[in-house]
């Protein structure tokens, strides 16, 4: 594994790897996204209880899952970056953060848009919603810390440390918020029994989750390329690349 991975620790190889992977990811994502959305919006049967409003699930659940998935992969990259001193892992942390934040925003917005017709309120202080909001704060913290540093080497390391601190705290935060919520629960909230979801709805949902994951991959690859370029600006290989067009 290490032998296979090691050459990619070099910036130029990593850049090329991103370039080769990008088309596959893009095609895959576009196909999944189109299929998932069309199926979810037009072909999946309406829910007998929530009617057509449940179609929001096809973007809400994927974005919520990916917002957490992106954070955990970011934290893993941060640990790799700090323990093995891999520069590219550090760049990956910074590359994932904006997409993760975007996923969190989507999850929050769609959650609100779904909550209004179902619960009668745009926002309730439900445990999941609150944790998601805090997750957004953590993402924004990593991003603003990274951008506050002039020297991007220190910035990357600082962002890594914060990402790790955040991932240690995230379960504690989620647990405490959930616990706080059960204490203070005022309005009754209908919880959807997701395990009993019909296959005709499950398939488009799964396709959408895969599509969103693909999207996170695509944007991460693009941003990783950017970050590598940014760091290696002065190196000959970047200059060759640019002057070649």
């Amino acid at each position, binding site marked *: 594994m290490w032998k296979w991975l090691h050459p990619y620790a070099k910036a130029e190889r990593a850049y090329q790897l991103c370039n080769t992977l990008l088309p596959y990811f893009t095609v895959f994502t576009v196909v999944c996204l189109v299929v998932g959305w069309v199926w979810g919006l037009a072909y999946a049967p309406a829910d007998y209880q929530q009617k057509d409003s449940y179609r929001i699930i096809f973007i809400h659940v994927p974005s919520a899952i990916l917002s957490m998935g992106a954070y955990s992969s970011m934290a893993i990259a941060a640990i790799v970056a*700090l323990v093995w001193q891999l520069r590219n892992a550090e760049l990956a942390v910074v590359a994932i953060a904006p997409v993760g934040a975007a996923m969190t925003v989507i999850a929050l917005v769609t959650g609100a848009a779904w909550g209004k017709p179902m619960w009668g309120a745009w926002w309730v202080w439900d445990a999941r919603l609150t944790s998601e909001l*805090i997750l957004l*704060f*953590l993402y*924004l*913290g990593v991003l*603003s*810390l990274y951008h*506050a*540093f002039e020297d991007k*080497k*220190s910035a990357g*390391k*600082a962002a890594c*440390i*914060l990402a*790790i*601190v*955040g991932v*240690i*705290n995230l379960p*504690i*935060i989620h*647990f*405490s*918020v959930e*616990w*706080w919520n059960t*204490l203070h629960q005022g309005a009754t909230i209908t919880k959807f029994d997701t395990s009993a979801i019909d296959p005709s709805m499950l398939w488009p949902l799964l396709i959408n989750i895969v599509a969103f994951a693909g999207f996170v991959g695509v944007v991460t690859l693009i941003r990783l390329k950017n970050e590598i370029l940014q760091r290696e600006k002065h190196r000959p290989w970047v200059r060759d690349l640019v002057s070649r067009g």
Partner: protein
Amino acid sequence: MKASHSYWQLFCAVYCKDLTLAFRQRAEIVNPLLFFLIVITLFPLAIGPEPALLSRMAPGIIWVAALLSTMLGLDKVFRDDFNDGSLEQLIASSYPLPLSVLAKVLAHWTITGLPMVLMAPVFALLMNLDTQLLTATLLTLLIGTPLLSFIGAIGAALTVALQKGGILMSLLVLPLYIPVLIFATSAIDTSSMSLAYGGQLAILGAMLAVAAVMAPLAISSALKVSVS
């Protein structure tokens, strides 16, 4: 010339230096306390003076005020040492950095957290707290404020190299404070219903134990990043 010094003596040296400095400029101790007091007085002015309402909200208010006043002193924990180069000297010492960091964080707590705990009975009067609630508030503050210092110092260490790190630090640290706030206020709430609140205190204690071990490590690596 080298040697018979122990880890304990290093700890004392760092801890005592910070305390000496704080006592030389008394504002450092007094200002967060005054801030604490002012924030607390703002609430009755904003929401009205009814005693029932106030005592219902008191735990939350006291804790939010404690959070904010801890933030006030945090920026100073590493800033001066960073600016005058003492931080480099600490790193270049043969002793492990997390130990010096632990001493500095505890010094911060002694300067800002402990006075708040000691002053809490006074604030309790302002908020119509009875003795039962007061004990609970004191206990949660006693366990919770060191936790705030530990978590906050991570943010302070990450932003010490930035000229205007103060606001950014609050943005990084406040979300991490949420669990402390939840468990502390819930302990006080539970005690107001005359129920046992040992569970919440135990969770706070567990978080403090984890933070006391992990935070110095995180802070040390953050400081090394900031210095480089």
